[in-house]
């Protein structure tokens, strides 16, 4: 049994959907950030699969390298924001972040 492009895309889709559900349903702020990491990895897996199985070649792998670097930068800023929220409100529950509610 040979696993081709569809198999990699299926795994990428599972990662993406799990990350999306994590982002949408978790009440812990750090849990939402973990969902973001899952989504980015699903996209990376898609890129690498297309690099291997279509004529995209090296361009897709370079793009996934940039995705990894940018995800690290975004995780740092998001964690700094989460830490500030925790220091000010002593909770990391995103349902308590309703000061801007109309």
């Amino acid at each position: 049994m040979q696993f081709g492009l569809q198999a990699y895309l299926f795994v990428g889709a599972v990662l993406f959907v799990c990350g999306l559900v994590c982002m949408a349903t978790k009440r812990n702020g750090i849990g939402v950030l973990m969902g973001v990491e899952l989504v980015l990895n699903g996209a990376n897996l898609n890129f690498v699969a297309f690099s291997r199985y279509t004529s995209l070649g090296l361009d897709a792998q370079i793009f996934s390298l940039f995705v990894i670097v940018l995800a690290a930068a975004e995780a740092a800023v998001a964690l700094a924001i989460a830490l500030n929220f925790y220091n000010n409100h002593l909770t990391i529950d995103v349902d308590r972040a309703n000061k801007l509610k109309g």
Partner: protein
Amino acid sequence: MNESLMDGQSLLFLIFAAITCLSAVAVVVAQTVVRMAFWLVLSLGSTAALFFLADADFVGAAQLLIYVGGTLVLLVFGVMLTASGPYLKIATSPGETVLGAAIALLFMFVVFSAVNGVEWPAPAVAQSVSADNPAGNTLRPLGLSLLGTRPDLDLPDGDQLSPGYLLPFEIVSVHLLVVLIGAAYLARAKRRTGL
């Protein structure tokens, strides 16, 4: 040579794909954020294994070094610094869980049927693979393309070089520096009386 039902590479793909998918589902299902972090590390580590299986050695190594060894450690630090006491559980209500699961399965079905309905074109030119240039050896072409030359795309007459990825490389480097300085400033320890 007898062909078994599944050769070694397919078996490894199946194992790592199963670990990745099940760990990703476990991240969603886990009740405490520390367990979510553990399943996330497992999921991203086996994604790196899938990268190695897809002949992307450098991307797989970068995933292990930067993502698992850097970003996820940062997330674990964040979990530690925002801990909310051992008996306080922040959990979603059962109605929301069922709704989330239903929407997730629906979305999964949509994505998968969209992916299956496309006739993906095969690679135009088979890459030259030899004993001293194995299939995953992407380090030199990737490095050279980040420096601005694309030796795998150069036209035959030699004095036209296609542009590499030097400008995005510079931009991302400066971006990373600025973002990390900004994050360190944002997360600094503040005095109690003022911010």
